[in-house]
Structure formats: structure tokens, C-alpha cells
């Protein structure tokens, strides 16, 4: 008789010594960090040697599934990939959908903690509670799609594969790791860390069942929540056209990042209607009730709103098919779309301003040049010519001079992922300025700010009255605080943000649903308040890690100078910019709500608590 499966099994893989150890997470730690992003941050704090070089064997790479990943709860196909980011030098954490996370759990492993560096290319094979370190020389150098196809050929078509492409192998600092055609743990350069460890792929085959505390209750709850979610308008639209639906919203507002944010309005050719002409079918990730992924007619998947703006408007490519082609290329090479698009646009502006010339760049850089963008993407992934320089990412500010950072749309060393120019919506601006991994919209974007919602409604949503005017600086800290806390919890659960309360609809899954689902899946009881505290604890843990690694404080919670100094040029948002005084006031309030001091530091008691939890021993 098999013994009961522990709630969280971690495999500690040391690639240098080629050893694998298993530890269980004690229940006290699970109660404090839950799983997914939360437990990943806990283990990163526990295992990372302070100030380690991100591309050295000292970096710690963690793949962690959420507490609900793989269960029947809606949209639970997600896991988090965490390490110290080679791009920004602070925490690197990226959430990925697809099917690998559930498969890891079915293989009996909830979290992989990867240390050291293999002497030759390897991949990890997970099955029946075991982790094998296997040779991957035959796979090294292949594109993401080729790698997965070869694994399916060699090991059977039923294995799930997450891999890096040439960009990760060549240590491009914004390389991503990829599952399938399009799913990516995109941000923070996690792919480069895989490459630095000579880790090509993680392959899982899960034959074991994942125990669910109340199976019948879970089925009933799933059906109830599915019907509830299906009533949501935005989920229906996402299922029909995907994220490009946001393009027109931002474009009419005059807030599409165009030509490196020098302009804010772009052609209609990239809107959902045009994109949809190239879509064959909409598909979903594991356990998905939304199905927002496009299978495009040009041989890939996508594009998302992020891609169509950052590889479209931002570099001036207006042709829909060409933009989709760039999207497919970037996906196959294993590059982060947001960073790639931002750096290329930045390089073009550097060229315009004379920091680069035809001799140093090897070519003429200009906006709207599809062939140039295509060549540059290849060169970045294979580190050739100017691509080799750009592959260093935001560190190039040191090479070109600190003033070039003023027009690099990045915060804390990470380019902005949100295609929305944040100068109009102050809540968005505060969100990306304070996000724990750099300029990122998936940490704290209060998306609903973009709609003019009635006060009664926002009061119900955020739990207290907030200023409904999106351009005011009042009470935006409340909105951001609310959003970042619930997004942290949703990442710990392993649920997709598209069904999360507040991300794009006020009536999706909230704390009550999470606590109900956790009880049905694991038998653990979490109250609404406890879950909120978990969210805050995870955010504090990230802040502490950022302080430890790069001394992140108030001075780093800021925006690119372009957002402060240059008013937006067009449409409804014309004239908007971020006022430094108003921004500082928002920041003061934000720190107060987070319980941090004026400089954005954690209180001593919190640091002691986190250190005490870190030092707890494991079985």
C-alpha cells in the first residue's frame, strides 16, 4: 500500500554533483506561503547565496506549482519559474501556463529546486516521484519547437516538455523558457539561467493521481464556478478574440506604446478584428474555461496584445501578417517578447539620437522596418553583431551613458511588459513603479481603472471608497495595494489571472473562492484574512530579497524620465504626464498601506519573522 502523498514534495537537484534529494514542505510553511510564487520566494530566500552572480552556478532556479495546480479548479495549469534575474539583478519570477505544471504534480513532484551547473547539456526527466538527470547533447542548439518535437519522438508523444531555445543557450539576458508553441515563462530572463546551468529542458510524464480531499465536492464546485465565469462578458470576449481586444481600447485613448513611447497612437491594422483574420482556432491551457490562445494561420500561436504592440507599434511594424511572423519567430527562438520589443525600439531611438551609427550598429536602424527587426531578433538570439550588444539588455545603460535610461522604458532593469503607456492612468503608473520584478503589469495592474466605473461599484470592488477618476493621484495606492495582494495570492494558487477578481473583471474568483477551492483540494482551511496576509507576506519576502540583492528602496520605485517629463502627444490622453509631486504622494501612501517605512523598507519585526521561517528545518 502506498503511503499518502505529502502536500508538497520538493526535489532538490544539484547539477554539479548530479544528486537529487527530496524534502517535504512543513505545514507551517505552507500555511505561510501556500505554494507557487509564494513558496518559490521562500525557497529562493532560503537557498540563494546573497549577491550571487545570476549566471553563475550559485544562482538557484525553482520551478514550483501552485497549491491548486492540476486539480479540477478552473484554469489551474500554471506554475512559477523563479531565480535571481540576469536581466535586472533582482528577483526573477515568471508564471507560465500550459501543461507542464500539472504534469510535474502527476509525476509526484511539486517543486524543482535546481542548484549548481552541469558540465554538459542535460535535461531533467520526471516520472513516478523520481528525477533523472539525463544527457541533452542531442537537443542542444535546437529551436524550442524542434526540441519538443524531438522529445516527443524520442520519449513518446505523451510527455510534457518545457525547454529553452537558442537564446537561452547563448545566455541572452532576456531569454525565456517555453512550453509548447507559445506558453512562456517569459519575463526576467529565466531562460538564460537555464542556459547557464546547461539545462536544456524539463520533461515530465505523470502517471500518478493527485489526491483531492473532496473529489465530488470539487466537481460540483468546478461546474458551479465554470457557469459563473461563463456569464462574464470579458471572459466571453477573451475566449473569442483573446487579449488583442485591448488594442482598440488603448489606441482610442491614445496610450499605445508607439516608436519607443515617442508616440501613442498607431494603425488600426493590429486590432482584434484584423488579427482574427489570421486565426485558425482558439485553444486553452490545462483546465481552462477561457481559451484565449490563438492558433494562427502562419504556423504559430498568438499574438497577444503585448506582442502586437511591442513587436508591432513599438517598432513601427503595421502589417498584421508581418507582426504575427515576428511573434512566431521570437517564440521559437525563446526570447521574451516584451523585452525584445522594448530593446529594439530603444536601439532605434539610440540610433536616431546618435548613440549608435551605421558603423557601430552595422546597419541603418529605423522604425517600421520589418526586415531589420527580423534580422535583429535572429542576431540577438545567436548573439551576432549588434544583437550581441543588445542581448545584454538593460545593462547597456552603463555603456551608452546614464541619460539613455531616460528613454529606455524599463524600471529596476526590467522593460515594461504592458503595451499601455501609463502616463494617463496614474494607477497603472504606480503599479509598474512598485512591482517587485520591475516594470510589469501582471504584479499589480489595476486594469479596471481604464473603465469609468461608478463609485458604488468601485467601493464594492476594493472594499473602500476610492477616487473613480483614473487621472487623479488620490487613493491610487489603495487600488494598487488591493491588486498586488490578490495577484500574489492567485500566483500562489496556480490559477490564471484571467479568472482572478479585479484583473479584468470585478466578478471573477476572489478570496472566498480560493479558500473554498483550497479546502476541497487539500483539506486545509484558509480564511479570507489569512489569504490576504499570505499575499502581503509574499510581497514582503520579495521586497526583502530585492533589498538583499540590489539594495532596492524608494529610489528604485520610479518611472522612466520620459513618463515624467514628456506629455503624451495624441488623442484623449493628450498632455498627460506623471507629476513628480503627485507620484511621490502616491508612493508615500503606498508604503504606508504596505506597512513599510518612508524609504520603502520592511519593518524589523517582519524581517525577523521571515528569517525565522527561513531557518525552520525540513524533513
Amino acid at each position: 500500500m502506498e503511503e499518502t502523498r505529502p502536500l508538497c514534495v520538493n526535489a532538490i537537484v544539484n547539477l554539479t554533483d548530479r544528486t537529487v534529494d527530496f524534502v517535504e514542505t512543513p505545514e507551517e510553511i505552507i500555511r505561510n506561503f501556500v505554494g507557487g510564487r509564494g513558496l518559490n520566494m521562500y525557497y529562493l530566500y532560503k537557498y540563494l547565496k546573497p549577491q550571487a552572480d545570476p549566471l553563475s552556478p550559485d544562482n538557484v532556479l525553482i520551478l514550483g506549482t501552485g497549491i491548486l495546480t492540476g486539480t479540477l479548479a478552473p484554469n489551474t495549469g500554471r506554475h512559477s519559474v523563479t531565480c535571481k534575474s540576469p536581466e535586472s539583478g533582482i528577483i526573477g519570477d515568471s508564471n507560465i501556463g500550459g501543461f507542464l505544471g500539472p504534469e510535474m504534480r502527476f509525476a509526484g513532484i511539486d517543486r524543482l529546486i535546481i542548484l549548481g551547473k552541469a558540465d554538459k547539456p542535460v535535461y531533467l526527466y520526471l516520472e513516478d516521484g523520481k528525477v533523472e538527470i539525463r544527457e541533452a547533447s542531442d537537443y542542444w542548439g535546437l529551436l524550442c519547437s524542434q526540441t519538443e518535437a524531438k522529445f516527443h519522438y524520442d520519449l513518446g508523444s505523451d510527455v510534457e516538455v518545457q525547454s529553452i531555445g537558442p537564446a537561452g543557450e547563448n545566455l541572452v539576458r532576456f531569454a525565456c523558457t517555453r512550453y509548447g508553441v507559445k506558453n512562456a515563462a517569459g519575463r526576467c530572463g529565466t531562460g538564460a539561467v537555464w542556459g547557464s546551468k546547461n539545462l536544456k529542458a524539463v520533461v515530465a510524464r505523470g502517471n500518478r493521481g493527485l489526491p483531492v480531499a473532496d473529489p465530488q465536492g470539487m466537481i460540483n464546485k468546478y461546474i458551479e464556478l465554470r457557469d459563473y465565469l461563463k456569464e462574464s462578458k470579458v471572459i466571453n470576449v477573451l475566449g473569442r478574440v483573446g487579449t488583442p481586444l485591448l488594442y482598440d481600447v488603448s489606441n482610442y485613448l491614445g496610450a499605445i506604446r508607439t516608436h519607443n513611447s515617442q508616440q501613442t497612437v498607431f494603425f488600426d491594422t493590429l486590432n482584434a478584428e484584423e488579427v482574427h483574420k489570421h486565426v485558425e482556432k482558439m485553444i486553452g491551457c490545462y483546465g481552462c474555461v477561457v481559451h484565449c490562445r490563438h492558433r494562427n494561420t502562419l504556423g504559430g500561436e498568438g499574438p497577444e496584445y503585448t506582442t502586437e504592440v511591442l513587436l508591432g507599434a513599438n517598432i513601427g511594424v503595421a502589417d498584421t501578417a508581418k507582426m504575427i511572423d515576428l511573434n512566431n519567430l521570437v517564440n521559437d527562438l525563446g526570447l521574451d517578447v516584451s523585452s525584445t520589443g522594448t530593446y529594439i525600439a530603444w536601439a532605434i531611438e539610440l540610433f536616431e539620437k546618435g548613440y549608435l551609427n551605421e558603423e557601430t550598429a552595422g546597419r541603418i536602424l529605423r522604425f517600421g522596418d520589418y526586415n531589420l527587426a527580423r534580422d535583429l531578433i535572429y542576431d540577438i538570439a545567436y548573439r551576432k553583431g549588434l544583437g550581441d550588444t543588445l542581448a545584454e539588455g538593460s545593462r547597456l545603460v552603463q555603456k551608452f551613458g546614464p541619460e539613455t535610461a531616460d528613454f529606455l522604458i524599463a524600471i529596476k532593469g526590467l522593460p515594461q511588459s504592458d503595451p499601455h503607456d501609463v502616463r494617463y492612468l496614474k494607477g497603472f503608473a504606480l503599479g509598474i513603479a512598485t512591482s517587485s520584478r520591475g516594470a510589469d503589469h501582471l504584479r499589480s495592474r489595476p486594469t479596471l481603472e481604464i473603465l469609468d466605473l461608478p463609485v458604488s461599484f468601485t467601493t464594492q470592488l476594493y472594499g473602500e471608497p476610492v477616487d473613480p477618476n483614473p487621472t487623479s493621484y488620490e487613493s491610487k495606492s489603495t487600488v494598487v495595494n488591493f491588486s498586488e495582494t490578490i495577484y500574489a495570492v492567485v500566483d500562489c494558487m496556480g490559477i490564471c489571472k484571467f479568472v482572478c477578481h479585479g484583473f479584468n473583471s470585478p466578478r471573477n474568483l476572489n478570496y472566498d473562492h480560493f479558500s473554498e477551492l483550497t479546502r476541497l483540494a487539500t483539506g486545509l482551511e484558509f480564511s479570507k484574512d489569512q489569504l490576504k496576509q499570505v499575499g502581503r507576506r509574499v510581497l514582503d519576502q520579495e521586497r526583502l530579497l530585492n533589498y538583499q540583492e540590489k539594495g532596492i528602496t524608494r529610489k528604485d520605485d520610479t518611472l522612466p524620465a520620459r513618463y515624467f517629463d514628456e506629455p503624451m502627444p495624441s488623442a484623449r490622453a493628450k498632455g498627460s504626464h506623471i507629476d513628480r509631486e503627485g507620484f511621490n504622494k502616491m508612493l508615500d501612501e503606498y508604503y504606508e498601506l504596505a506597512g513599510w517605512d518612508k524609504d520603502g523598507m520592511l519593518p524589523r519585526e517582519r524581517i525577523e519573522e521571515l528569517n525565522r521561517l527561513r531557518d525552520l528545518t525540513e524533513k
Partner: protein
Amino acid sequence: MAVRQKQIYCRPTLCIGCRICANACALTHEGEANPRLGRIGIRQNLFERYEYQELCRHCDEPPCLDACMVGCIEKDEKTGIVTNDDRCVGCWMCVMVCPYGSMKRNLVKQMAVKCDQCKDLDGPVCVEACPTGALVYEDREDEPEKPFFTGPSVT
């Protein structure tokens, strides 16, 4: 004479490959989550761009029944439902002969698992759980079988 029975059908254009059907099936029949333990399966290849639904057709003359060497697969004469039981020894002959890929293996228990149309419940749970309505449980007219080879023509 074949029994007229309701069957689980799929409308493939609506299938998004989420595997919820298989997972709900596994939870119902095994009490554990894992689409691989479901009696229905979604075979998906993102690169070759297809989703194929491995559904049991409850054949009139089931090859799995003929192939089973311990005789643990039966076809109910009244309902037409083909079931197996736990006398299974895990030889996987039924898995090999099923032309639709709908016999599944439970590799932990070393037993074949097979769809019983949730005969003890109100209706098949996979159909109930499908988020897009791709699966339906219907009584359809049988399509008359078209001959694979047509007669020689002289044109």
C-alpha cells in the same frame, strides 16, 4: 441486432484541448486528479495542430471484448454499454486493438480503464464538465456505412 443507445459525441471544432473532461472523469472514477486516469482522453499536438478526442464508441462488436483474455470486458445486452472490471491483468491487448485509442491504461494499478458512460450517475461527467459544449450525449441516427472501395469505373 444492435441496441439503440445514446452516445458521447464530440464537435471537434469546439474542443480547446483543456483536458477538463478527462480530469473530471478521473476524479469521478478514481477520486484523484489526472487526465491520464480518465476514461476519455484528449490527444493534442500543438505543433501538428490537432486535438483528437479519444472517445469510446461502445461498438456493436467491440474488438476489446474479443481481445480480452480474462474475459473481463462485457457488453450489456439491454443498454449496449461496454464495461470492464477489476479482473483485468494489465496485458493491454484491449489497448492495442481499440481502433479509436479509447482504452486507457492505469499504470499505477496496472489495469485497463474504460468508459462506462457513467451508467450509475445521471449522465456522463465529461459531457457535464466540458467548458465549451464540445462534448454532447445524444441519440443520433447511425450514418449508413459508405463502402471504402467503389466499383471500378471505365472512364
